[in-house]
């Protein structure tokens, strides 16, 4: 291939990882630099390896944590953790055993690094620009915030990577979403992401890798960029990517698993070249005016139903939209809708700046008595930093619960769930029917909006609470 031809960021990372190129009759063999593992999507893959008598090929490129099935309440006096079922406890024990047997590093219960897989990877400096990162989890796109090609895989593919450190992949198409202008005060990365998803639609990214670019993206901190990339799958895209810049490099410097000292500076100069060349061609280009975005919440049962909080819910234009409206039965004006539960956390919005934004709204205020508010930090490190800043005191004083790190009520498989019929404003990523528990109704929003809704008792624009009008 000619090096003169302009290439996208995605193309550069793809090209650097092709072990065997694709042909008409077979996909490319693509090398994986980092394989993240958690307890839910890995046990059957380890079983498949055992059946074949195959070992984990590169345990040094594999890193595991416990997050999905883990209780967020502390152990009892006897040290027993309150697992939702014995099966959940066994699933965690299975990952602990598999990691021991295969020599895989595990951020387990006793580790200060444990947390949601997509929070701890970047936090530890495991996620590097220009690498290929995979995990048996669709929100792996999060790591694309660093200019990595990061995507979710199924359990069969988890087995492929464990056994060979490679995947069979067809080259995806590309979309570039350029967000021009600046986000207004009180408008967050989550509002930007939900607006992009609403623009492209739930299947708008299917078969594609999305590169996010433009002034509004460049202005985001790394946590905001992670929020945007994290949600790429909610429009069907396998991966989202943002070109690394000084924000990225400064964020990574000094992280325990990042290169250290001179090696870091040398890598950083390579990372700076990871941008889409002038003239790089994308299969589709989309432009968004970020300055027009208002705080957003979803009205339906797919993540592409975000509208401004003060707006009216659109008339259903299809049987599916009608079903969504009937399931959610929000008020005509979204902001008039009463709230039962508020969940602040997840791989989308469980990082320190997210908790700071929520605390800013809740400070000195009280959660409405009819609302249950749950704040769950994304990792042990986030928990410790938040407690050092006193954020947990703000939440507790407001009447919210402060829990141990994990996926918690986002996926609701650990016992943290929303009761049937209740409406939750959630900083998580999916509002599908029953996502947060059978019959639960989920409204997706930013941490500030979730906090404001907890205080108000109905879906609320956070700006008045932030002194922004």
């Amino acid at each position: 291939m000619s090096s003169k031809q302009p290439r996208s960021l995605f193309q550069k990372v793809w090209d650097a990882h092709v072990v065997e190129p694709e042909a008409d009759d077979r996909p490319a063999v693509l090398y994986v630099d980092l394989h993240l593992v958690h307890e839910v999507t890995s046990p059957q893959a380890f079983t498949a390896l055992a059946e074949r008598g195959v070992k984990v090929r590169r345990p040094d490129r594999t890193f595991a944590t416990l997050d999905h099935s883990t209780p967020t309440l502390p152990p009892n006096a006897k040290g027993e953790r309150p697992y939702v079922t014995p099966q959940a406890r066994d699933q965690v024990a299975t990952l602990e055993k598999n990691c021991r047997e295969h020599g895989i590093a595990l951020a387990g219960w006793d580790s200060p690094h444990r947390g949601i897989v997509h929070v701890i990877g970047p936090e530890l400096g495991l996620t590097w620009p220009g690498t290929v990162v995979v995990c048996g989890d669709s929100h792996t796109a999060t790591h694309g915030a660093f200019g990595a090609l990061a995507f979710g895989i199924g359990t069969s593919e988890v087995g492929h990577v464990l056994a060979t450190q490679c995947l069979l992949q067809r080259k995806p198409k590309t979309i570039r979403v350029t967000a021009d202008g600046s986000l207004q005060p009180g408008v967050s990365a989550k509002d930007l992401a939900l607006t992009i998803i609403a623009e492209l639609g739930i299947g708008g990214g299917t078969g594609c890798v999305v590169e996010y670019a433009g002034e509004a993206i460049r202005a985001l901190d790394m946590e905001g960029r992670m929020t945007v990339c994290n949600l790429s799958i909610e429009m069907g895209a396998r991966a989202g990517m943002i070109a690394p810049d000084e924000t990225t490099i400064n964020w990574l410097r000094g992280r325990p698993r990042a290169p250290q000292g001179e090696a870091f500076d040398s890598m950083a100069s390579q990372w700076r070249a990871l941008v889409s060349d002038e003239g790089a061609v994308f299969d589709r280009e989309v432009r968004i005016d970020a300055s027009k975005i208002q705080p957003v919440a979803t009205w339906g049962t797919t993540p592409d139903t975000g509208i401004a909080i003060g707006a009216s819910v659109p008339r259903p234009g299809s049987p599916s939209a009608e079903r969504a409206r009937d399931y959610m039965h929000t008020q005509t004006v979204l902001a008039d809708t009463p709230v039962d539960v508020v969940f602040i956390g997840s791989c989308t919005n469980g990082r320190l700046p997210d908790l700071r934004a929520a605390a800013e709204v809740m400070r000195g205020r009280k959660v409405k008595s009819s609302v249950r508010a749950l704040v769950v930090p994304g990792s042990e490190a986030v928990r410790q930093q938040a407690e050092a800043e006193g954020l947990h005191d703000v939440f507790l004083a407001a009447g919210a619960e402060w829990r141990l790190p994990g996926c918690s009520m986002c996926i609701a498989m650990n016992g943290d769930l929303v009761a049937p019929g209740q409406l939750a404003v959630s900083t998580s990523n999916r509002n599908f029917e029953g996502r947060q528990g059978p019959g639960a109704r989920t409204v997706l929003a930013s941490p500030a909006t979730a906090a404001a809704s907890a205080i108000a008792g109905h879906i609320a624009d956070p700006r008045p609470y932030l002194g922004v009008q």
Partner: protein
Amino acid sequence: MTPFTTLTSRTVVLPQENIDTDQIIPARFLTTTSRDGLGKLAFYDWRYDAEGRAHGDTILNRIAPCAHRILVAGRNFGCGSSREHAPWALTDFGFRAVVSTEIADIFTSNALKNGLLPVVVDQQTWNELAARTGENATIDLESCELRFGNHVAKFAVESFARRCLLDGVDTLGWLITHLPAIEDYEKRVAA
């Protein structure tokens, strides 16, 4: 993996769009460490109430699954999570193929590795097929044709996955034969 060549079976139509993996198998059932026996959990919250009583109003509770192996579903089937439990649940329930106008990426990848054939057709073909719920259709993977009534519709399947399905070959075995090239790559690039 059992080879997939030609399948003739009655259809079940679930016309809803965007049937996500939380509908196909709710997350609270993902604490299993096995891939077997998940069919009873397929579409659980559509099939059962909070007390575990079967709803009579869903077609899924009124059919003999083994006689209805073709699921015809609305646009963007299988969106959401990467859980392979979704195709595990669908195949254990009895399905061998899903026909839609659009099927999510990760679901497609997972389905192909489990002998569940994702078939994407145009809207008109889908409309014709969905109007004949419970009737027989034939999916021929050799010719990549979906046939029902007087209709014959072509569909596309990624060529390598198609070969693996036709031959009943699993992809891990094939990938392992590439270990020398992988080792070579690591020596060059990723030591």
